Each structure stands twice: as structure tokens, then as C-alpha cells.
């Protein structure tokens, strides 16, 4: 992993009237944005050739702060907007930042179809298990029995495992990390951005102000500690007995395969038509 100085984060932020940011203190969004910036900086990419697209929600506010081509789109539709950009400009690096509700509830259809197409983009799901922006309603990743403003008696609505979902849909790079494991996450983002095809990282994140408070998870430090203590890397998990894995969330890269990528396939069709018409 390349070393990136603190100065880099400052360089990548937009300083013309965009601060203070909208996030609550203790929120993981700042940490994750910083990690995304370090991952981009590490690769020495041309910023003009990177577009960050988001939907609606707390994490979807990220693009406004970062000095890239940025699009804060509609609730659930970030991947569909990103598909428009990528299919028109296949050389553009496209990063989607989205939340658990944005990507798997209202945007679930676009998520699975982008995975199926294996279109080259990197989706970072900031998964805080709640709708934070609207004040704490349960999402498709809210755990069993967890309290939310719309599950006051405890959540009984079954959860998506985002990684399982997109693996089933055909994504070719699938990983999970957390806002605590920033070095690991940074490496995953770099790998995902260099992966040709649909890459997605499910990032466990903390919403101490709403989710944490409603579920007595403690403050920001306690929620960060929980990310450390309640998760296990998949390579380590493979060597542990099942009883040691009870209640643990598995991190790691779950899938990393090469498959034909949508834009490349389209370019081949265009090439084939040209050849036949030249004959």
C-alpha cells in the first residue's frame, strides 16, 4: 500500500463554502470519505477522469465535499445515473457512494442489474443499518430485534446480506470491511477500482446518534470497538471453530473473478459491425 500524507485529504476537499459538513459527530462518513480519498490519491489518477455518483442519504452527501466530477442524484438511482456516465464515457473511472437503504431497498433493482451486467464501476455501500437522514427508520440491513423509529417493538423484517445479494446477482469483486479497518478498506478500494467489472464493498459503519442511541450501543468509541471486536477476517474465520464465530460479521474479499465487462462487450459489438460493413 502506498503512503499518502495527511495533506492529500486536504487537497482533495472542496474548500469553497462546503464546510462544515452535514454529518453528526461520531458518524463514520468522514472516516470513510478520508479512506476513499487516500485510496484515490495512492493511485495517482487524473481527477478529471473520476466521477463520484451518489443517491440520497447521509453517506450520499459525500460527493459535494470532494474535488472530482460529482453527481448527487436521486434516492436509489445512483447506479443507474452512473451507468449512463460509464456507458457514454467508458474510460471514466466511476465510483458510487450509497447507503444500505439507498442501494438495497429503493435502489435494489439497479444494484442487481449493474452486478448482472458486470459494468465497470466501484460501489461503496456505507452500511449503518438505518435510514439516518430521515431520522432512524429500519432498513433492509437492520438486524433482528434492533430498534428503529419504525420498528419500536424490535425489527422482525429479515435482512439482506449485501455481499451474498450481489454475489448472487453476478458481481465480480465483492468485499466487506468497516470504518474501523481503514487500512484494509483503503486496499480494498484500490483493488476494486482496478478491477475490470462490477466491484462492491459493504462497509460497516456507525450511526451513534440514532442507531447507537436507540439500541444502547454506546457512543462513537464503543461502536468503533464493536467493529473491531465483532468482526473477523474471512481468512482468519476459516481457521476458527464455529462457536468462536457466533455473532461475528465476516470481513474480507469474498469474490474476485474476471468476467466479460459490459462496456468492453459493447465495444466488441461496435467493432464487429464495423468489420462486417467494411467487407
Amino acid at each position, binding site marked *: 500500500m502506498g503512503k499518502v500524507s495527511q495533506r492529500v485529504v486536504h487537497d482533495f476537499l472542496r474548500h469553497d463554502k*462546503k464546510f462544515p459538513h452535514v454529518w453528526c459527530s461520531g458518524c463514520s462518513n468522514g472516516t470513510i470519505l478520508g479512506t476513499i480519498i487516500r485510496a484515490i490519491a495512492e493511485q495517482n489518477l487524473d481527477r478529471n477522469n473520476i*466521477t463520484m455518483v451518489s443517491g440520497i442519504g447521509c453517506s450520499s452527501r459525500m460527493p459535494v465535499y470532494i474535488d472530482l*466530477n*460529482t*453527481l448527487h442524484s*436521486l434516492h436509489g*438511482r445512483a447506479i*443507474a445515473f452512473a451507468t449512463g456516465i460509464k*456507458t457514454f464515457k467508458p474510460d471514466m473511472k466511476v465510483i458510487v457512494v450509497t447507503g444500505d437503504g439507498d442501494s438495497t431497498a429503493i435502489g435494489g433493482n439497479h444494484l442487481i442489474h449493474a452486478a448482472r451486467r458486470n459494468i465497470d464501476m466501484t460501489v461503496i455501500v456505507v452500511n449503518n443499518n438505518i435510514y439516518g437522514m430521515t431520522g432512524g427508520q429500519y432498513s433492509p440491513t437492520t438486524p433482528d430485534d434492533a430498534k428503529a423509529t419504525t420498528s419500536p417493538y424490535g425489527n422482525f423484517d429479515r435482512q439482506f446480506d449485501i455481499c451474498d445479494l450481489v454475489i448472487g446477482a453476478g458481481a465480480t469483486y465483492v468485499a466487506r470491511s468497516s470504518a474501523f479497518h481503514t487500512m484494509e478498506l483503503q486496499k480494498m478500494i484500490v483493488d476494486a477500482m482496478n478491477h475490470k467489472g462490477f466491484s462492491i464493498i459493504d462497509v460497516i459503519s456507525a450511526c451513534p446518534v440514532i442507531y447507537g442511541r436507540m439500541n444502547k450501543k454506546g457512543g462513537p468509541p464503543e461502536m468503533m470497538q464493536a467493529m473491531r471486536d465483532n468482526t473477523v477476517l474471512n481468512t482468519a474465520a476459516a481457521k476458527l471453530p464455529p462457536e468462536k464465530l457466533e455473532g461475528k460479521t465476516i470481513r474480507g474479499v469474498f469474490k474476485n473473478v474476471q468476467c466479460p465487462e459490459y462496456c468492453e462487450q459493447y465495444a466488441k459489438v461496435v467493432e464487429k459491425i464495423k468489420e462486417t460493413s467494411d467487407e
Partner: protein
Amino acid sequence: MAQNSQKPVLTLMQGNEAVAAGALAAGCNYFAGYPITPSTEVAEILANELPKRGHTFIQMEDEIASIAAIIGASLAGAKSFTATSGPGFSLMQEGIGFAKITETPCVVVNVQRGGPSTGLPTSPAQGEIMQSRWGSHGDAPAIVLYPDSVKESYALTIRAFNLAEKYRTCVVLLLDEVLGHMREAITIPDASEIQIINRIKPTVPANWYKHYDENQKYLSPLASYGEGYRFHVTGLAHDAQGFPTNKPQEAGAMMERLQKKIVHNIRDLVQIESYKMEDANIAIFAAGIMARSAKAAVKMARAEGLKVGLLRPLTIWPFPDDAVRKMLKNVDYVVVPELNQGQFLHELRRLVKSTTDSKLIGLQRVNGTLITPTEILQKIKDVL
């Protein structure tokens, strides 16, 4: 296809084919869509034609994704569009609002069919006169064009692209199901005879660029992603740079700008056809396929010595207020045949001075069939 040719070509085409050909002539290089009757031919033709030109065609997972993709592509520099029908048009409304507030050029073709809901998928209706104006939440003006023939479908598709690029907004083209599937003779003009308008590109250095330049008479330059300007686009109320704001003066200025760029350019936007109106004491106000019936009715009435004329809007939004006021002043009655429950009639009432004025005579049908010229003529005779 015919649009490749250098000389004007006389050919036979469906309305949907003419839309596809018009889009290509206008310089369309991106289509995202979802299959729906009765607009599907547009997608099928472009699936054939766009890859041949090295341009992009993509079939999305639904209409919501389709409008999102064409907006995304447009922000990356594409001249993009989609074609749909009633149910798909309903699903696209939020995206249309996004294109309007972010001032992103794109074209949406709605080949109208019977509604509400699944309605009459293969029958004509004119149910989206008001939806095309007010369908998206919030309050922003609309540009909506409405052809009455295959030939005009071609011309107005090109115009829709031109207006979208010029005014940086989503332009809607309404087509009637009958027109979409009707074959008519059309002369495809030489490419050199077609006027093409492209978005104004910024010339300032990147750090001077404002995505919504308030100094440019509401027609401001538009950079694309990848050109070095690194601008921000949001559906939130935004300032001139594009950054979100909730300051009343900035949010208000944004809303005013959306309104003014249409209102201040009414003359450029509004197009009407006035047919035998000079001496008419009875007028018919009709658009699209109903104007075809109306024109035939005018001819039949004239043959019988009745002074009947036709006023036909080619641009239905912004509404041609001035032409309608003039018509209302000059005639005794206005017959309004339409394939809905009185949407044009409702708009015309807004322009009638007295609420007791009985000048307006509605003639409506929503059973999936057209109103014939004879029926319009009969209505005229009934009021005389």
C-alpha cells in the same frame, strides 16, 4: 437508413420510425430505454442504428433507470434521449424533475396510449397533456412539443433536441399512438438543410466555471464530466456553482431562473399553426392526431360554406396564450376535440375572461377510438 443520404429522399415511415430518424439527424448519440407499447419501435431502431455509428444504446432494467441513465450520459456530454409510453412516463417523472432542476439537456418521447394504469396499451389517447406539464413534483416549467404527422414527428424530434440543448432542460415530445404506428409519406431533408443546436461550451478556466452562470441570460454554458471542470450536480436547491443551499435568496434565484429561461423565451418556444382562421367565426383548437381530424372537418365545413378554422399548437407547453386570446376574441365558438376528459378545455378556460362565457365547446372521447371529422363537423352544426 434514409438519414444517411445526401439528397432529400421521399420515403414511407411510421411516426416511431420518424422519431428515431429525427433523433439520429439531430445528433443523438445515446439512448437508454425500456420496452413498452406503443413506443418500442423507437428503441428497436436505435438498437440497430446507434452501434453502427459507434454510439451507445442500452436497455435498462426499468424506466426509472432509463431516465437516470440518459441524464448521467448527458452530464458526460451525450445528446441523449429515451422513448416510452404512459406507465413508463409516470415512472420517469422524478427523473424529469431532476433534469429540470439540474438543467441537464435530454429528450423524452411519450407515445401516448389509453390510461390510467395499464389502460388501453394499443389504443390512442391524449391523457398526458397535463402530466407532461405538471407530472413531476415541485413547480418548474416544461417544454412539450406535439406533432400531428409523421413528417412533423421527424422535424419536432430534431427541434426537441435543439431546445433541450439550448435551454438545458428535459424536453418532452408527445406522440399519439396512432401517429406512432401510422405510415405516411415523408421527405427526409438533406442533412445540410437541418439546423442543429448544440449546448454552449464554457471557455473560462476551470476555477472560474459556474455550472449555472447567472450572467448568461438564462442560457448558460455547460461543461461535461471529464473536461476538467469538476463541477457538482445535485437535485437539492443549489447556488450558481451547483453547491446545495437553503438560503432563501439562493434557492429563490434558482427557481426564478428555471421559470425565466422559459418565460423570457416564449417567442422562440411557442409554435402554432393557424389554418383558415382569417375569416373564421368558429375555431377548432386541437393538437396531434385530433388536429388531423379537425383539419378535415374544417375542409368539410368550408365546402358547406361554414366559416370554420383551426388553431393547432405544435408547442403545447409553454401554452400559446397570445394566439389563444386572439382566437377567443375573434370567433363566436371554439370547439375543442381531444382524447381525454377535457385537459385542453381546462387550459383554455383559464384564458376566457368571463366565467359565464360559453364560447368553449368540449368534444371528448376516452374509449380508445378517434373522434372523426364528421363528428367534429356535427358538433359545429349543433352549436350553430
